[in-house]
């Protein structure tokens, strides 16, 4: 399975915590990456479309908490498939990290 695209991964990661709207995702991803990855508007919404087509996220009608950012129409929530995809990606990363750690430590690859 190929690597998950970076914007997808971070969007899923951001939504794994809670429902967010577009600019909420951008801010969260900036925080997560220490400002290294900025999701520009077109890339953000293009990626959100793709994730939705994959069935990994869906739109929800209203803000999770009353009063919060009422101006935004569209909120996004991660689906169970999305969580599975995120977990799968995480495991893939995990396994490569494990291999890397063992090699750097002079140990053999895990069986």
């Amino acid at each position, binding site marked *: 399975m190929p690597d998950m695209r970076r914007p997808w991964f971070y969007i899923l990661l951001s939504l794994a915590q809670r429902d967010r709207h*577009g*600019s909420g995702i*951008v801010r969260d991803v900036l925080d997560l990456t220490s400002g290294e990855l*900025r999701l*520009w*508007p*077109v*890339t*953000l*919404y*293009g990626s*959100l*479309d*793709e994730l939705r087509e994959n069935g990994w996220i869906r739109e929800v009608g209203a803000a999770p908490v009353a009063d919060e950012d009422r*101006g*935004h*129409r*569209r909120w996004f929530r991660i689906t169970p498939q999305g969580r599975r995809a995120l977990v799968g990606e995480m495991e893939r990363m995990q396994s490569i990290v494990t291999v890397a750690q063992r090699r750097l430590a002079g140990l053999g690859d895990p069986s």
Partner: protein
Amino acid sequence: MQPHAPRRSLSARVFHLLLRVLPEDVREGNGAEIEALFADQAADAHARGPLYHAAFVAGAAWDLVRRAPYEHWRRRGRHRNEDSPMRSFLADLRFAVRSFGRQPGATALIVLTLTLGIAANTAVFAIVDGLFLRPFPFPEPGRLVYLNERAPSWNLEFTGINYPDFHTWRERASTFESMALWGEASVNLADASGAERVNGLAVTWDFAKTLGIRPVLGRTFTKEEDGATPSRVVMIGYGLWQTRFAGSRDVVGQPLRINSRPYTIVGVLPREAEFPGNTQFWLPLNGDPNQKGENYGYDGIGRLKRGVTIEQARADLMRAHAPIWVARDSAHVVSPRLDGLRDQFVSNFRATGNVLGAGALLVLLIACANVAGAMLARSIFRGREIAIRQALGASARRVGRQLITESLALAAVAGAGGTLLGRWLLHLLLTFGPDQIPPWVQLQFGVRTIVFAVLVIAATALVFGLAPALQVQRADVTAQLVSGGAGTRASVGIPQRRMLDALVVAEIALALVLLAGSGLLVRAYTSLRNTDPGFRPEGVLTFRLSLPQAKYPSALAQRQFYSTVVDRLAATPGVQSAGVITCLPFGCHWGMFLRAEGAAPPSRNASNPVVLTRYASARYFETMGIRLVRGRFFTDTEGGPTGPHPVVINEQLAKQLWPNVADPVGKRMIWNGDTTSTDWLTVVGVVRDVRHYGLVKPMIGGLYRSAFEADTVQPLASLGIAVRSASGEAAVAGAARAIVKALDPELPLIEVRSAQAALDRSIADRRTIAFVFAAFAGIALALALGGMYAVLSYVVGRRRQEIGIRMALGARKGQVVGLVVRQGLRLVAVGVLIGLPISLVALRELSSLLVGVSARDPVTYSVAILLLAATAAVSALIPARRAAGVDPKTALGEG
């Protein structure tokens, strides 16, 4: 909808526009959010400083541009069943390019054909546009009119304007905002850098106001400076300002030596003041309203008040002129005339422009018919493919659109090539074309020409794309599929054959119009070339000198100067003879009215043609090679203020004054209006008519007086000098310059040219039009024959089986060849039958350009038809031989 600030910032608006590069559904689904997010974050960025903001906007825009192709790509194939016009056009285009790529030779031929047609049209349009469509470079040019006077009984459509007449008009006419006069004035400019002859105008003080132009520097003339007493002020043209004064801004107030007298520069004219042609300065006209005698010679221009029509102004001018008729012209010999300004200056070119335009259009039509034929043949060959597409559900409209797209693609390529080629053609036409086009006419390849080219290309694409498209509309899908469509077995469908035949017939008919037309023009040009100009131009060099009155105040001083120049020229090695004359052929005009001795004074309404009057030296005739018909030439010692006045007349004048006299030598005549009857002119000789007004215009009556009889300053102020030599014109010109410079370094030589060049120049426009039309006809012939070749090859291909059967049944090769050639000739015959009446009607338009040839000249038409038939037979021969080469066994085996 917009949750954010109602007034969008500039960056937001730009971003909004940029969003259009995204697929439509992205914009519909997310556009508002994307923009909102952008605005939101842009505001944050803005708060952190302008640099930060700029970086953000750039980043967002870059993201958009980078992502857009991916978004489009992601949607590929998603709308396959939706027939969006853009998408299907692009698909058609790809299809067209692929299918053309499979037949590079045929495609190149089609593109080349169209390129030629389009090039001819754009080049000719640039000329027609410059001459007839572009406005004058003055404000509200529609209100400008040209003024002059006419005298039908003098045989003059334009007499020039008499200053007192103008003065009366100006005071009495009420429909004009202003009116002004100009007269041509050429002067010698001299300073330390050398002598120069420059052309300019003498103008009334309100000339600038009438044209609607303002000086670049300084001022125009005052009313006082344009009074009856001359004032030494001058306005210099833009060109003179740049070349002589390097555009210096303190030129106003500086002196300028004109005709050896000091003048003061009061202003600098703008570029457009070159009107009516190559004007480099203005002087005040200094007309005298009380001038005695009839001195016609000025041109007039008027600016009409707003809303006044030409007819109203014409009526008003007649009314204003009325007192002049009462006072001194009861027979209404001279009356004012008023015309549109453009009509006056480009009317000479109107016939040329029309003819070239029509010729170019015909070439384009033939090219279209040719390409339509080729496309049609292609579509017939592709009948099976098209039928399959239709069977699979493509509508006839859809397939038709595919064919139109193909023609558009071809037209676009040919259009680009044709426009470039047209540009080059225009350059060629201007290089070899007539040089008498007024310089304010802009003959350039500008935006308007490009727009025209695009229109022509679009129209072309439609015309030749339509035939095959129509064919598809009525194609019978089942029949195509059952019969095997493009297979070699089927014979050609009758309607398709008819359409192909019709196209070839149309090409032949149009080609005949062009061939006959160019034949007529070429014949007219050769007959013009063979016209006897009345002199022998070989080896003759001519130039003019203009003696300023300041240095040469008397006729005596002028005569002495000319005598010295001519004597020294005649003594130059290689020179055979040299002579002087007031007006060289194709040069100036000086008219007089004459009456034969014994003839009653003409009644006022009777025709009284003007007589061209020239003063010449005795050796002028010998130098120019003018043949004596009767009597003798005068000598330089003959005549004088008191003695008899010997004159040499031309044959035309002899016929005019003494129609019933065989030998007019010894007859006498007198200036009309000379009531004292003392200055009788005695005819001593008759010479051949010299075609003074060019070979196209008929010669009028003319006479020569002895140059050394001229007793006033005026006639000799400007004189033409002719030199016949065996040593070549360049050497003589050098010698002449040296001789004149030695006598007067301030005096420039004017219009130095060989007599042959002057003669060629006078018919250059006819040569150009004949040449261009012949080129058009050549292209037309090649295209028509190419079209016929294509159709016959196609037909032979389709009839292989039938030919095979004929040959199996005993037909000889000759019979088969004859069969095909006859078929070609039948097309030519029908084309000629249709083209002949069209030519006879259409080519009447040429008659104004046809001198010495009738527009129905049977020889030209016969040659054109024979040429078409002969070349058609040749072009039919190749497919015919191919048909004769058919091997019956193979052909039948295919069945």
